[in-house]
């Protein structure tokens, strides 16, 4: 089995996780910028975080033979403070040329507020100006449906963004159509307690096909499982999905989307 983990917050994980992922067949990991579980007090805190994502973490992953890529932004959980968000947005461009940066993400909404929406629009504008891929975080639980609609409307209203260069992550049964119908990619996040379980993610594949869909563990500092993608692949085998269909979902699809950024290259493919 081979897979790409397209959404993992590795700065929160231990080295055993890297070993387990590589042992299970992981060929690349992509790390979106996110909330640390506490608010950073200044733009300088984000500068240090972006250095960690673009310098330190790729080196740590390389020790286990795993290519590490990243996405940059200020997370919607910290976007309520517009002044801080604008200061962070101002330092992002200097990192965009770095060799492992794939695009802007994970941007989106958290509590669907006006300030969050304003900061989201500024991220979308930055992505449009600098021709970056976009990775979208959709809100949690009761806020997901409304937030997904607001996010999709905001991106669709920006004509410089092509939908096939955007992935709407953390979709569930009530939001997947909103993403796919608008021409975006959709990501299913495999969590033990929220978002999608493995059986539900496979249900969504059986209902909507496997063309513009990927799966991720979104492993971070909370309850999450770095091996969620290969474990779901095993569940797909139990459901009699063919090996080539499984490979498409967990390897070929993320590679196809991410390769829209020329910096995404896997050692085997070069």
């Amino acid at each position: 089995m081979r897979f790409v983990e397209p959404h993992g917050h590795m700065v929160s994980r231990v080295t055993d996780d890297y070993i387990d992922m590589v042992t299970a067949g992981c060929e690349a990991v992509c790390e979106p910028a996110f909330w640390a579980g506490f608010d950073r007090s200044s733009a300088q805190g984000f500068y240090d975080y972006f250095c960690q994502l673009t310098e330190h973490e790729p080196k740590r992953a390389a020790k286990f033979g795993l290519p590490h890529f990243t996405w940059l932004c200020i997370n919607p959980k910290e976007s309520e403070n517009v002044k801080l968000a604008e200061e962070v947005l101002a330092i992002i461009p200097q990192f965009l040329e770095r060799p492992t940066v794939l695009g802007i993400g994970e941007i989106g909404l958290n509590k669907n507020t006006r300030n969050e929406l304003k900061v989201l629009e500024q991220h979308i504008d930055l992505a449009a100006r600098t021709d970056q891929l976009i990775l979208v975080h959709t809100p949690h639980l009761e806020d997901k449906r409304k937030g997904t609609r607001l996010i999709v409307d905001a991106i669709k209203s920006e004509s410089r963004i092509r939908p096939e260069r955007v992935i709407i992550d953390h979709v569930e049964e009530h939001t997947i159509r909103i993403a796919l119908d608008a021409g975006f990619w959709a990501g299913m996040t495999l969590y033990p307690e929220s978002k999608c379980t493995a059986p539900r993610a496979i249900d969504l594949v059986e209902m909507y096909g496997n063309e513009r869909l990927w799966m991720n563990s979104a492993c971070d500092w909370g309850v999450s499982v770095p091996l969620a993608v290969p474990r779901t692949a095993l569940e797909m085998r139990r459901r009699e999905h063919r090996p080539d269909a499984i490979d498409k979902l967990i390897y070929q699809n993320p590679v196809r989307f991410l390769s829209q950024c020329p910096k995404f290259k896997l050692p085997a493919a070069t």
Partner: protein
Amino acid sequence: MFTHKLTGIEIANNQMKRQFVILIVFLARPSIWFLFHSGRLDRGIDDGIRRNGIPSSANTLRRWLDAMQVKMMKRQQILDLYFMDARSKLIDLAAFLDRVDRADGEPDFRLGAFRKALSELNREKPDRAESVLLAFSDPTSEPAPSASTKAACGAWPETA
């Protein structure tokens, strides 16, 4: 009078011939639908979703999934695989409601939302997971003026 080569049906005149053609076209609709959409499968299956929505009949959906190499199990197999797990989760739900009932306290909007979501399980259509998620969701569409918390609690506070 002539005999149709494939079906062997005898057709008396031109009017009957026309009616016969209409009947064949009517019966062949699913195949025609699939022929039309299978062209799209080559160019990108979900272009089909985007423009036409998900195929409506179970038959066409199955062939469409076959073309995408997505396998679906028989009902018996799904029960073999998931019945015990679902049974266990159902008993856990029942025990959770009993536990809540045994406890003293004020009404809580989360319980109201939970009961509303439970009623969705009795729906006939196979979109119960979506309906349960919607029962817990904020149905409004305007951005909120501000946020008093970063966290979500799992149910929309204004659920009756």
